[in-house]
């Protein structure tokens, strides 16, 4: 198959290789069905997979997930692992919203009993969980307290009584990335983050109430505490303005580094520095700090959800049973150990719009999940639902322990908005049985279900490719958006 000057060879039912050409140091590898590939070739995402393959120190393949689409520099849905000694770190390989991610909260509540209370609950969540552009959180940080958040992540929330030890245990990396240095975060970035902690944001960020509709992998569902008919809560947010600013600040630093060292890459948004350089290490410290802010942010949001649900339903914590299944990011760069060409190596894995998906037996998993694999959450669109997956062994062989992160957009925001006026989205969602509360009608119109690929086809690809395994399908019943 050819698209313009890009040659693609299908290497399995669910994988395509882009051979090395020009300055590519490794081939490209994209997970997709043939049908999905017809959508993928319509934008610049494949070209970006090839561009990433030019980065110094890249190992094995420049990888695209089935939800891949056009990003800036790296594609969204891209994975690239770099040799620690010779490779580079690129802010464009992480994204602006550093450690944007998803937390799933389970409950003791069955949807059948919760359903009559949904309108009241959604209104309360929309009122009490800050969302929308420019929203401010209930926590106003002082500069010293900000430094504690950046260094401590979810641990900071434990110290304030906004998180349990169990929340932290079931958060990726224990809710705190090592190596975070608050001094590596600019004053402007810190100022942007002072009053945004505990806010959802806008765009594709959301809070959702779902019903576990179908279970595919009962052992994993049982380990995660999920059962059919159960009410669960999804939180999708990231590092807010602080993270965006850290990315912007370091793109400039990296651009200067590249000029100084005469590094050439095909796109200036791929600006990078060697991992061991002062600039590279400084960005990694700032990245870890911003990632910790994101962990703390989702923790405060989860805490607010828990408190609100308990108050509205007049239930105690034990009866409501709202507990963290897992919290995992999908925009990050992390030091990990992987086998590459038969040799175990320390690598830096960039995941931009891709989720870590460690398989059963991985030492970084909480003991409760070690037999079934790491939980992975794939939010779909507002209408067609979402999936819970488990990391599978193939991910370690094929994708540096990574899988997809969402449905992936297929329609531009303009096309989405033009296809349906904001007002009728509410009616359409209600017709589909989904209550929606949102701050901006424009945002809502841009997020219509048809703007996204069918999440079911995306997860079928990663399941079939063996890089993650389907655990359960969730049906959305209420959505709060900014």
């Amino acid at each position, binding site marked *: 198959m050819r698209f313009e000057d890009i040659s693609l060879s299908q290497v399995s039912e669910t994988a395509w290789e882009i051979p090395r050409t020009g300055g590519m140091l490794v081939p490209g590898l994209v997970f997709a069905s043939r049908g999905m590939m017809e959508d993928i070739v319509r934008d610049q995402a494949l070209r970006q997979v090839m561009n990433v393959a030019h980065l110094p120190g890249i190992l094995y393949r420049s990888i695209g997930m089935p939800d891949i*689409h056009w*990003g800036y520099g790296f594609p969204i849905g891209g994975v690239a692992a770099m040799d620690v000694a010779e490779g580079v770190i690129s802010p464009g390989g992480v994204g602006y919203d550093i450690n944007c991610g998803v937390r799933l909260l389970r409950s003791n509540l069955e949807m059948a009993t919760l359903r009559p209370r949904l309108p009241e609950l959604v209104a309360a969540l929309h009122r009490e969980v800050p969302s929308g552009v420019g929203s401010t959180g209930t926590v106003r940080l002082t500069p010293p307290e900000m430094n504690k958040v950046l260094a401590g992540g979810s641990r900071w929330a434990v110290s304030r009584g906004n998180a349990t030890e169990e929340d932290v245990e079931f958060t990726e990396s224990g809710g705190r990335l090592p190596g975070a240095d608050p001094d590596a975060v600019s004053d402007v970035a810190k100022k942007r983050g002072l009053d945004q902690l505990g806010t959802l944001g*806008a765009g594709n960020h959301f809070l959702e109430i779902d019903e576990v509709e179908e279970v595919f992998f009962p052992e994993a569902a049982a380990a995660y505490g999920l059962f059919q008919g159960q009410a669960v809560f999804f939180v999708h947010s990231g590092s807010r303005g602080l993270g965006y600013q850290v990315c912007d600040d370091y793109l400039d630093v990296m651009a200067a580094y590249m000029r100084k060292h005469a590094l050439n890459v095909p796109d200036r948004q791929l600006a990078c520095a060697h991992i061991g350089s002062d600039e590279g290490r400084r960005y990694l410290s700032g990245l870890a700090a911003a990632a910790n802010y994101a962990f703390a942010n989702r923790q405060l949001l989860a805490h607010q959800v828990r408190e609100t649900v308990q108050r509205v339903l007049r239930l105690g914590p034990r009866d409501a049973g709202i507990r963290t299944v897992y919290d995992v990011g999908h925009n990050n760069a992390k030091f990990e150990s992987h086998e590459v060409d038969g040799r175990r190596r320390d690598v830096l894995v960039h995941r931009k719009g891709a989720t870590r998906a460690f398989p059963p037996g991985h030492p970084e998993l909480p003991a409760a999940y070690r037999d079934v694999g790491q939980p992975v959450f794939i939010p779909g669109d507002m209408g067609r639902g979402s999936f819970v997956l488990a990391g599978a062994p193939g991910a370690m062989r094929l994708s540096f322990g990574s899988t997809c992160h969402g449905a992936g957009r297929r329609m531009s*925001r303009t*096309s989405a908005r033009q296809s349906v006026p904001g007002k009728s989205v509410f009616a359409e969602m209600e017709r589909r049985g989904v209550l929606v509360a949102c701050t*901006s009608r424009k945002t809502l119109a841009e997020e219509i279900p048809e703007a996204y690929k069918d999440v079911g086809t995306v997860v079928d690809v990663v399941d079939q490719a063996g890089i993650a395994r389907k655990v359960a399908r969730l049906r959305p019943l209420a959505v709060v958006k900014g």
Partner: protein
Amino acid sequence: MTRRGFRLLPHTADLRVEVCAADFPSLCAASVEALFSLLTDRRKIRRSGRRTLDSGSGHPEERLLSILRQALLLFSLDRFLVRDAGAIMESGRILVTVRGEHVDDARHSAYREIKAVTAHALTVEEGPSGFTARFVLDV
């Protein structure tokens, strides 16, 4: 003379903007206005405050990127909204003067969150009828 204005070009996830103006300073000013048109209804912004943005030196793309980043920070950091903008060139630097006011939640509502102005696919071109810029906003 090129009519000053902007339009959205196709982009799967973000906002790809094309802006036209007669000369480069006007292009920078029009780009700032386009940014705020994508944030809110500019007609509801009063011209009660004034700020000046300085592009510094560099290639046209770098100067435009610098102006747009500073403009976005006006909103993200100081909650200042821009109603209109004008620009002059001084010793190779572009000075953009914007007029507007701080956000008043009673009168202003934001259409969407713009996370960043990206350097990806950012171009400035001079043609027979004026200047054209294209840039991508991460939303």
